[in-house]
């Protein structure tokens, strides 16, 4: 069964450092998403991406965050200057349609900012 692949599974970084989280979505999907989940809290939407541009972003997705699809297969989330409160699980998801159903999630990257 097709799956969304995320790397690394765990990233530890020092506060203020830049991190890049990587995702390989399902190949025939058109919509891509990043979500995060702080330990013990709800899954939170960060950003959606379609046709090589951001289609929607949440209040969390400020100027410290950026997304790219550099080569037609990878989908990356960059955090420019990490803060302690960025520590969370970051999930990538992809879907064929943008209606909320049918999202396939990756296993996530656990980001720990120290």
């Amino acid at each position, binding site marked *: 069964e097709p799956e969304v692949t995320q790397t690394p599974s765990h990233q530890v970084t020092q506060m203020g450092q830049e991190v890049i989280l990587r995702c390989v979505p399902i190949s025939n999907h058109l919509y891509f998403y990043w979500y995060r989940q702080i330990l013990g809290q*709800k899954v939170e939407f960060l950003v959606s991406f379609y046709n090589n541009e951001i289609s929607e972003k949440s209040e969390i997705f400020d100027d410290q965050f950026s997304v790219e699809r550099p080569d037609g297969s990878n989908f990356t989330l960059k955090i420019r200057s990490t803060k302690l409160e960025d520590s969370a699980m970051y999930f990538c998801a992809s879907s064929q349609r943008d209606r909320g159903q049918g*999202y396939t999630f990756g296993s996530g990257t656990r980001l720990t900012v120290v």
Partner: protein
Amino acid sequence: QKEVEQDPGPLSVPEGAIVSLNCTYSNSAFQYFMWYRQYSRKGPELLMYTYSSGNKEDGRFTAQVDKSSKYISLFIRDSQPSDSATYLCAMSGRLDSNYQLIWGAGTKLIIKP
């Protein structure tokens, strides 16, 4: 309003029991209703999705949507220890001119052998 309410649990039941998980919501714009299962330190896995009101069955799982009451349910029959996980409801609809996926907090389910 975007709120989706879900009891975080934990809900502990003996193996073989019927499990009932529920969410309530307030925004009538929601049209798609989903249940995801999340094992510890893993991503959410789509179990069921339903469009509008009605029932949907898949094996041991049944999803129900009652839009008039703004209430959705997931039933698990013949529960197994491997069903132990966090179950998240999620729903989407055209909010603020975009389709948005709004999540419940998740209910932690423990099936005791």
